[in-house]
C-alpha cells in the first residue's frame, strides 16, 4: 500500500495526542493499591532465588561457557564423524538451528565473525551481548541452550591445545566480577 501522508492530518494527530491526558481515575488507582493487590492469591511457586541474582549469574555463566569454549567450538567445525570434537560440532549445529530463531543470540555464536575480530572488538561484542542476554532473550537461553551446552566442558579437557586453530579469548575481568 502506498504510504499516506500523516502530515496532512497533523492538526488532528496533535489533538489526539492531547487525549493522552485522560488518566485512570484516582479512585481506581487507590482501589488497586489498597484492595486489589493485597487480596491477590499468593502463587504456589516459591521464589527460589533473587531473580536479579539468578539473571546476572546466568548471563555471566553463559558467557563463560561460550567464550572459554570458542576455540574448541571453532575447531570442531572441521571435525568428522568419529573425531573427538564431532559431538561438539553436532551440538553447535543444533544450537545454530535454535539461534536462527533468536537473531540477537545467534550473533554471539557466529564463530566465523569472532575469528576475524581483534580481542578488543570481541570484548566489546561480548559486553554488548551481555546486555542483550539480560534484556532480551535470557529466558530462552536458560530453557534451551544451557542443556545443550552443558556437555561441552566435559569434552573440552580431552582436547590438547595443539588441536585448536585459534587461541581462546579470555573473559574480561569486568564480566567475571
Amino acid at each position, binding site marked *: 500500500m502506498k504510504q499516506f501522508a500523516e502530515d496532512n492530518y497533523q492538526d488532528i494527530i496533535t489533538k489526539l495526542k492531547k487525549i493522552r491526558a485522560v488518566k485512570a481515575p484516582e479512585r481506581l488507582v487507590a482501589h488497586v493499591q489498597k484492595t486489589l*493487590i493485597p487480596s491477590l492469591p499468593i502463587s504456589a511457586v516459591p521464589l527460589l532465588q533473587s531473580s536479579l541474582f539468578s539473571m546476572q549469574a546466568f548471563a555471566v555463566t553463559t558467557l563463560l561457557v561460550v567464550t572459554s569454549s570458542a576455540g574448541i567450538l571453532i575447531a570442531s567445525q572441521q571435525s568428522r564423524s568419529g573425531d573427538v570434537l564431532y559431538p561438539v560440532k553436532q551440538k553447535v549445529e543444533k544450537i545454530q538451528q535454535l539461534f536462527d530463531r533468536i537473531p540477537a543470540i545467534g550473533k554471539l555464536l557466529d564463530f566465523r565473525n569472532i575469528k576475524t575480530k581483534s580481542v578488543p572488538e570481541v570484548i566489546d561484542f561480548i559486553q554488548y551481548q551481555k546486555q542483550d542476554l539480560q534484556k532480551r532473550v535470557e529466558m*530462552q537461553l536458560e530453557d534451551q541452550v544451557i542443556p545443550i551446552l552443558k556437555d561441552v566442558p566435559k569434552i573440552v579437557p580431552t582436547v590438547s591445545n595443539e588441536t585448536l586453530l585459534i587461541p581462546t579469548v579470555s573473559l574480561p575481568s569486568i564480566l567475571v566480577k
Partner: protein
Amino acid sequence: MLNWLSSDIFLIRRLKHGDSDAFGKLYLKYLDSIYRYIYFRVGQKQELAEDLSETVFTKAWENITKFKEHRGTLKAWLYMIAKNVVVDHYRKAKPTIALDENITGVNSVIETEIEKNEDIRQLMSCLNQLTTEQKQVITMKYIEDMSNQEIAQILNKQEDAVRALQHRALQKLRELLK
C-alpha cells in the same frame, strides 16, 4: 541498574514467581494506558472502563505464566487481553447491540480537565463514530504511541492493513470535524 529493575522482563520474572509487589508496579505502569484504550472502546463510560480495566489486570495476574517474552511485548499482551475483555463484556451483556455503541455524546460521569476543552471534547465525540477497528488503531497509534508492528500483532493484521485503517480513520475524522 534502576532501569533494569523496572523493566518488564524483570517484573515478569518476579510475577511468574507470584510476587504481588511486582504486579502492583506493573499495574500502575500500564493502568492509564489500558484504561484509556477501554474507555474509548466502551463509549467513554468511566465506571465501565474502570471495571473492565480491573478485569484485564486480574486476568493478566492469573495467566502470567502463559506470557512468552519472545512472542511480543508485555504491553501488546495486555492490550490483547483488554481487547478480549471488551468483546466478552458486550457478548455477555447485550448480545443484540453492536460491539461499540455509537454514542455521540461524552458519557463520563466526572468531566476531566481535558474533556472541558471544546476541541478535544468534539474530537472524542467523533472518535465514537469510527468503526471498532478504526477506533482501536487510532487509539493505539496516536494516543498510546504504539508501533504499527505492535498494533498489527494485537489486532492480528498485516502492518499494511493497519496503515490503511489509520488512513481511513483520519480521513473520517477530518470529515466529521468539518
